[in-house]
């Protein structure tokens, strides 16, 4: 029957296309349905707070220094001794990100020594003027209870819940290549996400001894 198969060869494409009718669709109805993004997704930045409400940012400007696109502007200031804003000696007095220049490489997340700047799953950030794309500290910093802010909270496209998840890249890069640190929690919990577990690591085990408590997210 091989001659028959040869004869059908040119028409096999018709069968392939017709077969697709029964397959599930690969496209989704975007603004109505949203793709589930992976943990490490690089989305909009947030500035985190500690569980006690103090800011994590200590104004060290490492993020601004490492940024290949030079899109971060930080100016630190000394903490007022009576009412410290951050845990350290200084805090980020001005913190701005020009989202028009940001390339979402997440080097700032890797650079931040206090896990103050992390990335979330929100990427719908279109604006109608250039000014709105410059995110100030007010837009970036989460509330003391962990609720994130967004400059256009009412936009239909935006699911603000996506701002509440994230930090995957910070967790993923924390071991910095050391197998010994895989599965070790190396960060302090933040008000936005609570305590986060480490990734499973190469041994398949999560080392939870440092995290202290179970995560809820």
């Amino acid at each position, binding site marked *: 029957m091989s001659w028959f198969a040869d004869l059908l060869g040119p028409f096999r494409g018709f069968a392939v296309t017709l077969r697709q009718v029964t397959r599930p669709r690969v496209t989704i109805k975007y603004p109505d349905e949203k793709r589930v993004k992976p943990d490490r997704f690089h989305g909009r930045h947030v500035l985190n707070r500690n569980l006690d409400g103090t800011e994590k940012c200590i104004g060290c400007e490492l993020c601004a220094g490492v940024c290949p696109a*030079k899109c971060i*502007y930080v100016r630190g200031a000394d903490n007022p001794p009576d009412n410290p804003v951050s845990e350290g000696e200084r805090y980020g007095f001005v913190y*701005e990100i020009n989202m028009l220049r940001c390339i979402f490489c997440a080097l700032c997340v890797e650079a931040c020594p206090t896990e103050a700047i992390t990335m979330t799953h929100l990427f719908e950030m279109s604006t109608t003027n250039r000014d709105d794309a*410059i995110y*100030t500290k007010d837009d970036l910093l989460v509330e003391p209870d962990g609720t994130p802010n967004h400059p256009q909270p009412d936009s239909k496209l935006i699911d603000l819940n996506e701002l509440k998840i994230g930090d995957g890249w910070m967790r993923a890069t924390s071991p910095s290549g050391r197998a010994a640190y895989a599965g070790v929690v190396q960060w302090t919990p933040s008000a936005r996400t609570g305590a986060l577990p480490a990734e499973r690591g190469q041994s398949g085990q999560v080392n939870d001894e440092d995290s202290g408590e179970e995560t809820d997210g």
Partner: protein
Amino acid sequence: MNELIATLVEPFDAAEVELRSYASSETTYHAITIPVSDWVGFALHAHEIGFDTFIDLFAVDHFTEAPRFEVTLNLLSMTAKERILVSTRVPYDGATVPTITDVFQGANFYEREAYDLLGVDFPGHPDLTRILMPDDWVGHPLRKDYDIGEVPVEFKAGSADL
């Protein structure tokens, strides 16, 4: 230095050969430096003895060093599985390297690119015009004395004196 490379550089007294190896690999390649007078002759000779695959040609601006421009030719011998990087140095005044488009057709675009971005002249090239930059561009951007230029990044607090 293996036999093929020895044959390659043998007619050229002034050629210097340096053996380098790739990262995380045992494979090696040869960096050869020749005077500019031997440039076309070397290319021809290399083509004859088997380095017939043209891979790359580019220039480097060393700026602070005496012969300022370095033009490097990257050739491959697929039969011998050898790679050579042939370089020559030319000074700022008279940064001219004779074209090798007669030996390797593929050098055409690459010499145009080197001319366009670093201002090295290739006399004899059939169509030495700018290739990446606009025709009316002034200067050669990859030269070290070419100003990088800067676009100020807009920030809300950036201009305000806080």
